Every structure is written in structure tokens, then in C-alpha cells.
């Protein structure tokens, strides 16, 4: 048992190429930056919401502070500035944590004014992990300035990637445990999932929101929803399987499929998950990115293509 534990710890700290953390920084920070900036209007609108609707969550439940419009504008500007610098990997040890904190502040604040967006939670956690790591040491301005000198011990580039993977897996397992705590095996054996799909479609239609045409069409076929429930719990409880090389790809494909299924049935988007970003820590993405950039530079270097006409003589 002790030997197995030691082996697991050693595996957890095994070095990974700094480029993997670097690419994760670019993808996760880039996503988070765009996600907030594309909805900036909505974040600023919170200043004008009726104060009695403020139900602080996360760090705001400790602060209990309502922010003015000017404060929100200042936070968004600082968010955009630190986000751009951290994305480029410039002075990452300062800009990375600053961006992660601002990201957490803005998302927590917005979620204090209505429905808590489950799809935003994992991205916020991944940003925090990356910010606490050496994610600016490769594929970054900091790396160019250092001109190839190693910035930290090789172990520093392994554990943050694996921690992100652990958090991804944990989020699915917790989600399954909550379903079982709330509803027990009835979550699979009864019509809970079908009724949830029917309710979401009804609510959206009554409130004048877009709703999926697929969900209501399937409502009469209740066994489909029992099958979906089984599939969901297998995917969620099976998340730790992603740590086994042979089961990794099937699990990731199943998880991504589950999120696209949720979108098709209920029109509830989890953009971070739909794009497959939570699963990148499980993948040797630096190789794929290196291959892609090599291909791009090859195409750029290739001489202009000329059609060869075959006249047949």
C-alpha cells in the first residue's frame, strides 16, 4: 500500500515539458479572457440591478460588498490588461495571479445576481491553478527574454497539469455523488431526467427563451432518458478512468458527447466543456500544437502551387 502511494506521488510529480503548461495557459487564459470580455455589457449591467436581488456567492459572501458601475469598469479594464499580458506570458508571476483573482472576482460577482452558472466554475479553478504555477516559462514573452535558460526545476511543470486533470475528474465525480445524494438510484430508475428535460423546455418556452426542439420530441419515449441517466452516471463516476492511458480517450470522448447531448436536449451550453478544454490536461497537447505550427510554417514556406496540364501527348 505504502509502495503504491509512493509510486502515485512520484508519478504525480514526474516532469512534463514546460510547453504543455505554456499551451494550457494560452488556451485556458485565452478562453477566460474572451468569455468575460464578450459579455462585458452584462457584467457592467450588474451595477444597476435592484440591490435586494444581490445574493453574494464565493468571495463576495465574505465581503458582502455591492460594486458601483465605476468599480466594475475599473475591474474589467484591469482584467483585460492583466489577461492580455498573462496570455502573452509577460511577467507572468505577477500578471498571472492578478488575472486569476480578477477573473474570480468578476465571475463571482456576476453569479451573485441570479442563476449560478455551473459551466464557469471549472474554468475559474483551472485559471487559479495555472496562475499558481510556472505557466509563463514557455511559449511566452518571459521565455524569449530568458533566451532558453531553464527557469525552474523540471518537476515544477508536471504537477500543475496533473492537478488540473484531478480537478476536472473531481468535478464530475462530485456531480454524480450529488445526484445520488439527492435522488439515490431513482435518478436512473425513475423519470427524473425526462422530467428535468421537459421542465427546462417548458420554462424556456414560457419565459420566451430559446429552447431545444429535440428534448420535447423525445419526452414520450421515457426509456431514452433512463439510458441517458445511466450513461451520465457512468461518465461522471468514471472520470478517474481518464488517468489510465488505455481508457483516457474513450472517457474524454464520452464526456464531450455528454455535454453536446445536454446542449441538444436542453439548449444548455457549457462552452468550456463543449470545446473540450477541461480535458486538455490529459493530453500531450504540446506535441499536437508543435506539429500544427510546423505544418503551418511548411505551408507558408512552400513554393506557389502550379497546375500541370496533361495534354496527353
Amino acid at each position, binding site marked *: 500500500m505504502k509502495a503504491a502511494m509512493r509510486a502515485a506521488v512520484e508519478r504525480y510529480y514526474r516532469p512534463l515539458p514546460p510547453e504543455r503548461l505554456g499551451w494550457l495557459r494560452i488556451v485556458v487564459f485565452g478562453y477566460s479572457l474572451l468569455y468575460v470580455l464578450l459579455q462585458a455589457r452584462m457584467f457592467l449591467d450588474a451595477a444597476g440591478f435592484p440591490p435586494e436581488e444581490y445574493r453574494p456567492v464565493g468571495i463576495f459572501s465574505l465581503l458582502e460588498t455591492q460594486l458601483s458601475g465605476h468599480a466594475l469598469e475599473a475591474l474589467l479594464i484591469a482584467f483585460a490588461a492583466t489577461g492580455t499580458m498573462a496570455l502573452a506570458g509577460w511577467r507572468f508571476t505577477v500578471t498571472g495571479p492578478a488575472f486569476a483573482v480578477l477573473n474570480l472576482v468578476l465571475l463571482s460577482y456576476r453569479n451573485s445576481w441570479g442563476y449560478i452558472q455551473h459551466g464557469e466554475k471549472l474554468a475559474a479553478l483551472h485559471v487559479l491553478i495555472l496562475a499558481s504555477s510556472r505557466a509563463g516559462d514557455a511559449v511566452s514573452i518571459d521565455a524569449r527574454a530568458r533566451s532558453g535558460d531553464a527557469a525552474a526545476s523540471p518537476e515544477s511543470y508536471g504537477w500543475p497539469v496533473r492537478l488540473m486533470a484531478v480537478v476536472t475528474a473531481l468535478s464530475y465525480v462530485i456531480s454524480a455523488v450529488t445526484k445520488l445524494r439527492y*435522488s439515490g438510484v431513482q435518478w436512473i430508475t425513475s423519470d427524473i431526467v425526462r422530467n428535468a428535460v421537459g421542465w427546462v423546455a417548458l420554462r424556456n418556452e414560457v419565459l420566451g427563451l430559446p429552447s431545444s426542439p429535440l428534448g420535447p420530441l423525445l419526452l414520450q419515449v421515457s426509456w431514452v432518458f433512463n439510458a441517458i441517466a445511466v450513461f451520465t452516471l457512468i461518465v461522471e463516476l468514471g472520470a478517474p478512468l481518464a488517468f489510465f492511458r488505455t481508457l483516457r480517450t474513450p472517457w474524454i470522448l464520452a464526456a464531450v458527447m455528454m455535454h453536446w447531448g445536454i446542449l441538444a436536449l436542453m439548449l444548455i451550453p457549457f462552452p468550456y466543456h463543449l470545446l473540450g478544454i477541461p480535458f486538455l490536461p490529459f493530453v500531450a497537447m504540446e506535441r499536437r500544437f508543435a506539429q500544427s505550427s510546423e505544418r503551418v510554417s511548411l505551408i507558408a514556406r512552400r513554393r506557389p502551387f502550379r497546375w500541370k496540364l496533361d495534354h496527353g501527348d
Partner: protein
Amino acid sequence: MRGALVTVAVVCSVSWPLAWPLDRDSFPLSNYPMFAWPRLTTACTIAQAYGVDAAGRRTRLPPSAAGRSPAVTAALDVNRQLELLLLGEPAAIQPYCRKIAGYVAEDPALRQVRQVEIARDEYDSLAFHAGAKDPSRTVTFATCEVPR
């Protein structure tokens, strides 16, 4: 050492919601209660704010009538606010109704609205999707005049 500290802190924090009561949620820590609730029947209720015109016609008020911007999630946020008030603070419903009436009075697009109603409509989701779009029952919790 740093790796161990961050790992322990993150894993403990992320797992902490497993010890929370089921109705508690937060951000970014969560027990992900989405669709976990045992919705065993097809009966559904939706709390809404309605505007009533001089002829007695009822129409659903837009999120702007509750002081919200026209974002996609605004209608959900207003619905959630009403449900929370109905569940936890019934005494706050009448003041909330008056507050909405105040917003309606300032909105030229809602000038036909004379009265605001806070109601909860009951539906059967299977019947609804089979074509029975009207609520089977409506319970009105508060009514107030629009100050004009």
C-alpha cells in the same frame, strides 16, 4: 513543497462541497446540484410577473420591468428571484410587486399596463409539450397598481 501545498489546498477545497447541505451552492466551489433534485412528477410551476391592461388582459412582463437588462439570462434571473421570494420571504412579495410597478411606470413601452401581478402558474410538462400550453392553475400572490 509548493506543489504539495497547492495540491492539498485545491483538492480539499474542491472536495469540501461534498460535506455541504444539498441546497447549498457557491462559486467556484460547488456540489454541482444541476438536475440532481428528484423531480418525480411532470408537474411544474413557474413564478412570473404579469402586466394587466385596462381591458384586463394579462401579459408576461419583460425582465426590464424588474430592473434587469435584456440579456438572455435575465428572464431566468428574474424567475429565480421570484421563486426565492415565494419560498423564503413571502412578506417581501408585495414590496417587490410595488417595485416592479415603479419600473413599469417609467417604461414607455409598457404604458398600457395598469396593474402588476405576481403569480405562480402550474403546468404539466408532458401535456404542455403535447399542445396544452395554458397553465392548469394560477395562484396570484400579489397585485399592485402602476403609479401614473
